[in-house]
């Protein structure tokens, strides 16, 4: 068995194997990610990069907060001057191997990213001004906050000791072919967890000391500037795939779940010492995308009828059973309601068309009839008297199934025939890319930014319309040019209406030069979304974290600024969690 389990030299001391369990021990146990034996730490290698573990093991440069701002995390300062963003690094951070952490460690990564495809990159140059300063210049003018957002949620995970040689090679490369060769080399470079330990290639507050397929052992890195903040000497990350988190929690074997809220249904079975610590209005929503290539879904009244016919409340109720915490959106705007005020204003929002969040069969019927559909034997038939069936596609992950199932049942009971296909997630993404169905369940994943650009992204996690230079309609048949009523909230186009180009607008939104422009464009897009219903958003999920509040003191609202992505991990990495 020797190949598969690596024995760390040094710290193999036996610490008790149960985590929370009432007895205050000195180890913080929490679930995250995949087994450390399965992952590696070169971020350029695609498949098995340790996405989740990096969150705990590397310092983050800057973070986006729920108020829409982007502020330094590791950085001392970030300033914008014209097209240039200046990043100032602190001097007192170290890699676990004792090397100083300098701006170059981050710079190497930035430059590699840029140089892999310099033409396509939005960055003109990155410059290492001195050991602790980087100047980053964009090709085009961009709103300052968006320039900062560009480095938000990025990690110092490219130690110069490892990556500098690749940067040099890229710099020396004469053409794209040679650059691709370097990229390929990078793709095949692997940094195993063992190597991470041996060479000390991390820089977070907690350092990896050992691992096996069912845990990653962490010890406080005493040379870290925050080392004095916390009294927790050790932590352990239990891979989510190696153990059933729910049963760990029920048996009180974990102390925290860093970016998951405990749902009502879980509350019942979890021990009392585990409590939700912090709740966050998160940036992710879920939606159903309509494929306009289906002749019926291409008709606005039909889409609207669907919006009336389904009961968002009960869809969300079903999801809550599966552990989701969230609520249906009040308005179909594509944006989280938390940023409505900031970008739309309540007047604007109030004017928008109201789609019911609970079932409105009459409304739906009226809409169907308006479009010339009639009901026959309880099922709707089209104006030609033909029956039709929508293919609904979803992934077989639990949450997705829950929502789609209810959605589907409600369409059926309304008289719209559907055939639901629940496929494994990889197959689902495959079909999704080619839009092989009429209605799809899909996340609406915004970057960790509470900013309209994150919601109006023209890709399939956003509101994909397609590449506007490619024809008159995108992959889902959504037109590149369409007309909406001139008046906000009007249900029909009267008069000439306003012609808009949603795809183009979405693509241009990130380079809006002023707040005002951002707001204007956002309102246009929101009005389009609200009027045309290209997608139907059905839940706004919440995030946060729960933990063992008996044994540990964990920061909650007010204690620290936590209104950012993965608040539990953020607290942990900042040394804000201590034992009681």
């Amino acid at each position, binding site marked *: 068995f020797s190949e598969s389990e690596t024995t760390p030299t040094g710290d193999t001391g036996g610490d008790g194997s149960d985590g929370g369990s009432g007895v205050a021990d000195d180890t913080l146990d929490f679930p995250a990610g995949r087994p450390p034996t399965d992952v590696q730490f070169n971020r350029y290698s695609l498949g098995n990069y340790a996405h989740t573990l990096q969150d705990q093991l590397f310092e983050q440069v800057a973070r986006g907060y729920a108020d829409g701002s982007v502020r330094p995390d590791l950085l001392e300062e970030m300033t914008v001057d014209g097209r240039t963003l200046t990043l100032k690094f602190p001097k007192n951070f170290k890699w676990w191997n004792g090397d100083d952490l300098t701006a170059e460690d981050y710079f190497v990564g930035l430059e590699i990213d840029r140089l892999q495809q310099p033409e396509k990159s939005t960055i003109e140059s990155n410059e290492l001004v001195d050991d602790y300063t980087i100047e980053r210049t964009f090709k085009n003018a961009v709103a300052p906050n968006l320039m900062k957002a560009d480095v938000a949620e990025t990690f110092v995970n490219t130690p110069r000791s490892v990556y500098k040689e690749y940067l040099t090679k890229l710099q020396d490369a004469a053409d794209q072919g040679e650059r691709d060769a370097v990229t390929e080399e990078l793709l095949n470079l692997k940094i195993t967890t063992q190597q991470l330990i041996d060479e000390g290639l991390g820089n977070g507050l907690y350092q990896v000391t050992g691992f096996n397929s069912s845990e990653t052992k962490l010890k406080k890195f005493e040379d870290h500037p925050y080392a004095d903040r916390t009294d927790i000497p050790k932590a352990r990350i239990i891979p989510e795939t190696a153990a059933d988190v729910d049963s760990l929690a029920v048996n009180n074997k974990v102390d925290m779940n860093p970016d998951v809220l405990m749902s009502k249904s879980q509350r019942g079975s979890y021990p009392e010492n585990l409590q939700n610590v912090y709740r966050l209005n998160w940036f992710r929503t879920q939606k159903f995308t309509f494929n306009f290539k289906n002749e019926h879904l291409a008709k606005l009244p039909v889409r609207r009828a669907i919006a009336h016919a389904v009961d968002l409340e009960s869809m969300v109720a079903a999801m809550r059973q599966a552990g989701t915490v969230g609520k249906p959106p009040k308005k179909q705007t594509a944006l989280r309601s938390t940023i409505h005020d900031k970008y739309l204003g309540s007047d604007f929002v109030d004017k928008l068309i109201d789609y019911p969040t609970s079932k409105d069969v009459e409304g739906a019927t009226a809409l169907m009839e308006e479009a010339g559909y009639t009901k026959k034997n309880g099922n709707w038939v089209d104006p030609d008297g033909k029956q039709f069936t929508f293919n609904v596609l979803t992934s077989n992950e*639990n949450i997705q199934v*829950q929502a789609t199932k209810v959605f589907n049942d409600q369409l059926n009971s309304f008289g719209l025939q559907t055939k639901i296909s*629940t496929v494994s997630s990889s197959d689902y993404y495959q079909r999704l890319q080619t839009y092989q169905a009429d209605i799809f369940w899909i996340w609406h994943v915004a970057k960790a930014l509470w900013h309209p650009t994150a919601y109006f992204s023209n890709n399939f996690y956003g509101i994909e319309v397609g590449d506007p230079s490619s024809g008159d309609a995108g992959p889902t048949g959504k037109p590149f040019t369409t007309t909406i009523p001139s008046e906000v909230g009007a249900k029909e186009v009267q008069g000439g209406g306003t012609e808009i180009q949603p795809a183009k607008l979405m693509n241009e939104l990130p380079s809006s030069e002023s707040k005002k422009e951002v707001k204007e464009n956002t309102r246009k897009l929101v009005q389009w979304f609200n009027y045309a219903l290209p997608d139907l958003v059905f839940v706004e999920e919440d995030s946060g974290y729960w933990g063992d509040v008996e044994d540990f003191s964990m920061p909650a609202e007010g204690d620290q600024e936590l209104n950012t992505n993965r608040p539990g991990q953020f607290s942990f990495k900042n040394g804000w969690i201590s034992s009681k």
Partner: protein
Amino acid sequence: MSNPESDTFDLQNLYDESSDHEPESRKVRLKRAIDLNALAPARVASDDWRALLGGAILAVFVLMGTVGVALVDKPTSGDAPVLAAPFQALAYPFGTDVFGQPIHAQLIHATPGIFKMIFAGAVVSVGFAAVVGVLSGFKHGERIDTILMTFTDVVITIPGLPLIIVITAIFQPENPYLVGVFLGIDNWPGLARTVRSQVLSIREESYVEASEIMGIPLSTILRRDILSQLMPYVMINGAITSRRIIFESVGLYFLGILPFTTFNWGVMMNLAYEGNALTRPEMLHWMVFPMLCIFLLSFSLVLLSQGLDSLFNVRLRARHANTTKKDASHTSQSD
């Protein structure tokens, strides 16, 4: 001294000598046929608790899949309160799931699909096995036998479950018949080999040789002498195969490898399991009842496969038949 014409004449003579037989009436014959082929098996079955119990359970499921589907409405979300506990209300005796769908209705509406799957799978694997086995057994020693057996051996070496998983993962079949076919493909080789060896040993029986010497056409020999002997064996294996198909299909649904479109016990278990039914007592029934169904259906099949043995046994059947003379068994040889 003898020629074909006088042969019939000879037999005719015999007949004339003792022509006092009354031709049997059609009614008597029919009665006997019914007695032997329907009533006697029933009587045998009623003697064998395994066949009886197995048959009864299976019958319940068949009813569920036919009458039940007609009687009980297709469940949809919101039919009833969410996660109602079992045995509380008549409208949802087994409780409801997180969608508020009554569990019993889901179980019932999943049954036709399961049967379709079993049917397709059993037909494919057992049928294929029988054809290959009989063919190669009957052509023993010829090239076709070698080819078929080599092919069979090759397939035997491919481990069934992983292959099925890979195949279903690739083709993502949604139609229950297709699922059954896919699940059936790994199952036939072992059976084919056994059928072949059975055919080989039946062929050794002198009654087959006698038939050949009597000039009975090969097709008749196959049908009368060989297939009739194999039938019980094939049926028993059909039951065993069916159980296996249930296991595998439900397993693949349970693990989320097969795409699901309609109700299925495995899907229910999958949803419940993914919903952490194990750690949440109020959800447990959502998991337990489909499990119970799987258990009962396969239990009935296992029992049947054991009980069928006696059902197909002519000796037992004859003993339970009414229309043969009572003293028949007295003269039977002890062997």
